[in-house]
């Protein structure tokens, strides 16, 4: 295998079910990740800290002490921009800049050197944030998340800024959910349990799996076939997923700040049900990506009605797969 500098990490998003239910706390989340050899910890401060955005110095010190204790490193900070914060108007660009500066400063206090910039951020705000990103050493990456795709005109606005400003502090954070080749069965099965028509669900999944470029009419087609409200809702849900050929990432690799290794369901340690990581990871290695692959488990909401969610086990499976695809040997700490 070609040598590379890709590192394994976990986004704390992955453990949202157990943390919400108070079965795990922040320390548990960091500890279990470290035990899997996932040394990079991505945080959503608005999830992990109820005091957001006014974290005390003691909370910040506690966060750093956790990383010291478990040998982990803070990686990305997932920011949001509440453009619709006020009921009567959207945020102005100046207010948006103020909001992202607040996040950049907090990311710096938390020791995060990357920031997931959410896709609804105005491109003007992204551009104006660049000097602050540099000053506080936080690389900003706009998230490319389905149903957006790298060649979407909304994303092109950000790529134009990235190419114009030409700073290593502006880039992208692709979410591997742009490569959903096989529709996640945890999602379709949930719709069936909730009352969608099994035959129509299967019909829709089959269409998705062929990746046609005319899926925007899917909900109408389903209605024409007598679909109920849930069948139509499922059709609308399906068009929120995305598949593009893994190779399309290659020209963008130099601009990648961080990667969300999204997944819905691991099939043992072997593979993710929907996303062809065995094709994506070699491309990242060959392209010289040198950041983190950060596990982002998003299956909980689809199975919580029928089985206890075990996010830790799911992440463990994915980390084992990533370790193998990254060529880590079995004797190496964390790999199995």
């Amino acid at each position, binding site marked *: 295998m070609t040598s590379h500098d890709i590192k394994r990490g976990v986004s704390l998003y992955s453990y949202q079910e157990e943390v*919400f239910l*108070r079965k795990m706390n922040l320390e548990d989340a960091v500890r279990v990740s470290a035990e899997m050899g996932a040394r990079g910890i991505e945080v959503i401060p*608005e999830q992990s800290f*109820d005091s957001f955005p006014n974290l005390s110095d003691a909370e910040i010190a506690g966060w750093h002490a956790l990383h010291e204790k478990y040998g982990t490193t803070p990686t990305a900070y997932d920011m*949001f921009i509440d453009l*619709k*914060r*006020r009921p009567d108007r959207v945020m102005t660009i100046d207010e948006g800049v103020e909001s992202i500066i607040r996040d950049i400063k907090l990311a710096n206090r938390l020791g995060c050197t990357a920031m997931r910039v959410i896709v*609804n951020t105005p491109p003007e705000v992204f551009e104006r944030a660049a000097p602050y990103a540099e000053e506080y050493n936080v690389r900003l990456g706009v998230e490319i998340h389905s149903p957006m795709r790298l060649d979407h005109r909304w994303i092109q606005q950000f790529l134009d800024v990235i190419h114009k400003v030409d700073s290593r502090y502006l880039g992208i954070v692709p979410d591997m959910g742009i490569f959903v080749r096989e529709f996640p069965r945890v999602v379709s099965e949930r719709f069936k349990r909730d009352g969608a028509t099994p035959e129509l669900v299967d019909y829709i999944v089959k269409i998705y799996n062929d990746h046609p470029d005319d899926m925007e009419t899917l909900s109408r087609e389903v209605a024409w076939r007598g679909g109920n409200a849930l069948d139509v809702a499922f059709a609308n849900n399906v068009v929120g997923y995305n598949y593009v050929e893994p190779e399309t990432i290659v020209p963008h690799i130099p601009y990648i700040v961080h990667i969300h290794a999204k997944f819905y369901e691991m099939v043992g340690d072997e593979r993710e049900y929907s996303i062809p990581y065995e094709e994506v990871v070699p491309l990242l290695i060959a392209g010289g990506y040198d950041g983190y692959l950060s596990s982002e488990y998003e299956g909980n909401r689809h199975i919580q009605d029928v089985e206890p969610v075990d996010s830790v086990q799911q992440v463990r499976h994915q980390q084992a797969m990533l370790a193998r695809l990254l060529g880590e040997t079995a004797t190496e700490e964390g790999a199995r």
Partner: protein
Amino acid sequence: MFDRYLLEEDTLLNVEQDGAVIGWSVGARIGYYRGLGLSMIDVSLSIDGAAVPRERIRVQLHGKDYRLTDLPDVLDDRWGFSETVTLFVEQPGGLTAGSHEVSLEQSLRISYLAIPSVNRVSRQLTLA
């Protein structure tokens, strides 16, 4: 994504003040994977199938007591991801002993979505 967990077990209470029952309350969670500012949150409640008038609902957290109708203007307080918030309903006499069907609808104005995200749950809760 967390609809089923929004109303917490063992939180339905009659509330007394100066020896009189002035209403009832229930503990609720936010149905989202992050906390959110109060100006972006709206709730509605029903009890045993009857809608609770909005002006009778108060949202209590962090030692504060907000009228539901004032929430759109609250720009400096948040409903945290891990927090149980008390929804208080002004109703002299409170609820009768035993089990009640409580329904909560929570509307979250999430900026990256086109329309508010609405979470709904109904459950039988026993008055503590």
